[in-house]
């Protein structure tokens, strides 16, 4: 087991290295650079900038230098925001993103799973139909549409919540709603189908035949088994929510890191692209690792062994 964990952690480092390498060379393969713009800079200034940021070094040297920086957890200076390092950009945006993301995650778990259970237990009756219609809309309608409509209705028309920013606690409502809407729907649908499948299992009949109370049959025997696929999906969902969303942060003018990811690309902010990619990849891998470990708790049939290759 320990050997397996060590193996997994090493594999994560290898994956991260591959991601760094691929992103680095792909990024440099795209024409243009951080200091290309419609307004041509004077050649001297261009040269000075390139020299300052070592952009005139051969690519392999830039790559090695970058790797050295990453190893010492220094993601380098931003090319676009003078005087700011990528570490600082992430540190600044992360709390905002994490806060909205964590609230959204809470909504996903606290609403998605129970809604799915209610739907499954009332299969083909009105609560099921209601939940499924809402969940289908939630999955089908993009978050920016939900965000815009919600903004118009609740902020503009009704004035219940501010239109942007998080200064007021009420400011969290709409971004969290827009962020979690899709995943609540997705998880509700998944939990429903998974529970319905579990309810058909022979051991559920055994549990009833033993005379167990309805609640025990459902929660002790049904729910745990049906939550395994839900947990599988929740890992990437956590990563997705905690790393923010460009669109949502843009619409509600939230100073998170989600928008930096997209802006850094249009800006060709090399170090920011690299840094945020590495950060995203790391969060995702850690979440998947946690999910795999959770399987051990949920399903005793699963045992991990390190490959002896």
């Amino acid at each position: 087991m320990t050997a397996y964990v060590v193996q997994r952690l090493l594999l994560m480092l290898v994956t991260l290295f591959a991601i760094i390498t691929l992103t680095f060379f792909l990024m440099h393969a795209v024409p243009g650079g951080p200091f290309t713009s419609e307004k041509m800079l004077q050649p001297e200034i261009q040269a000075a900038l390139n020299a300052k940021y070592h952009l005139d070094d051969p690519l392999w040297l830039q790559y090695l230098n970058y790797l050295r920086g990453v190893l010492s957890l220094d993601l380098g200076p931003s090319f676009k925001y003078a005087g700011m390092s990528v570490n600082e950009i992430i540190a600044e945006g992360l709390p905002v993103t994490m806060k909205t993301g964590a609230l959204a995650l809470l909504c996903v778990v606290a609403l998605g799973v129970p809604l799915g259970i209610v739907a499954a237990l009332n299969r083909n009756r009105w609560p099921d139909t209601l939940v499924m219609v809402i969940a289908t809309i939630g999955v089908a309608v993009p978050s920016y549409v939900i965000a815009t409509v919600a903004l118009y209705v609740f902020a503009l028309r009704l004035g219940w919540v501010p239109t942007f920013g998080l200064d007021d606690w009420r400011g969290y409502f709409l971004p969290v709603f827009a962020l979690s809407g899709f995943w609540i729907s997705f998880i509700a649908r998944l939990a429903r189908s998974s529970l319905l499948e579990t309810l058909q299992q022979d051991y559920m009949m055994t549990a009833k035949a033993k005379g167990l109370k309805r609640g025990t049959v459902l929660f002790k025997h049904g729910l745990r088994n049906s939550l395994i696929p839900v947990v599988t999906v929740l890992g990437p969902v956590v990563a997705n929510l905690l790393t923010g969303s460009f669109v949502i942060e843009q619409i509600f003018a939230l100073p998170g890191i989600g928008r930096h990811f997209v802006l850094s690309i249009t800006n060709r902010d090399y170090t920011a692209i690299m840094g945020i990619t590495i950060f995203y990849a790391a969060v995702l891998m850690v979440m998947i690792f946690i999910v795999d470990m959770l399987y051990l708790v949920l399903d005793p049939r699963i045992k991990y062994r390190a490959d002896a290759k």
Partner: protein
Amino acid sequence: MTTSHMSPPLLSVSNLSTSFFTSRGEVKAVRGVSFELNAGEILGIVGESGSGKSITCMSLMGLLRSSGRVIEGSARFEGRDLITLDEDELSELRGNDISMIFQDPMTSLNPTLTVGEQVIETILRHRKVSRAEARARAIELFELVRIPSAAKRLKSYPHEFSGGMRQRVMIAIALACDPKLLIADEPTTALDVTIQRQILALLKELQGRLGMAVILITHDLGVIAETADRVLVMYGGMVMEEGPVRELFARPSHPYTRGLLASIPDLRDDTHHRLTPIPGSPPDMLRPPKGCPFAPRCPHAMAQCNAALPPLYHAGEGRRARCWLHHPEAPRVAGITAELVPA
């Protein structure tokens, strides 16, 4: 059959009918089944898939899937009609006075709970005992069904057991609260032949020791022959024949029973007879035939058989047969005794 005729039967099922209401219509799975079961008796119910044998027992337990409903009849168990009990009352009985084991031990145990927990929770549900006492009882039960190193194996999960051992766990769960009636639905069908024998022997032995009544549902006449006291032959949702096991095997009174017996291979017979299958297939229960459900496949079918449902003819010690051949004016057919008289 030494069990008293004085005391009322443990279970008395009368005119039980169960249907499933599907999008294609009403599937009449069980049509007017009646039988009695005495305390301590083993009743075998035999029939092919779809004959209604499992559904009959699921109806008694209140374990029908949501589209199924008992539409008429009663099932008196110790004076109470199981059919009219509500879910709470039924759940008090299930696993306690009446318990059940199922066909596939590989899927009938919850894969995410230890086998010990699955026994203990049953005891805790029905008995006012502490967890430690329930655990001690679970060890006792594991020893009873001969699971080696019982105390240690309580902590195992189902996937760590073989099929035969899992069925022993299922039996331990079923016996946890000393049931008066054990319903075993194809308990050996999913097991290897050698394991089948062990499980049947175990069931029979425990039945003798604990004195409970058993309903053994199977499509395997061999299993019935070895285990049961009395047999109920079901076809098309109805009882076709009933009788003590020896007599019924020696002198089947229904062409269907005779067909079933003829389709069993006889290993002592070295004359290389071909097995005799019953031609045709079971009736469509969406539109059950007006007459005898077996008539289309019956070698002795007469015009009368398709026209009207035969009554159950009975005579002597608990023998009944639903066949027009037992009508006094029917032609005599060798092998199917016509000495019975109408009810």
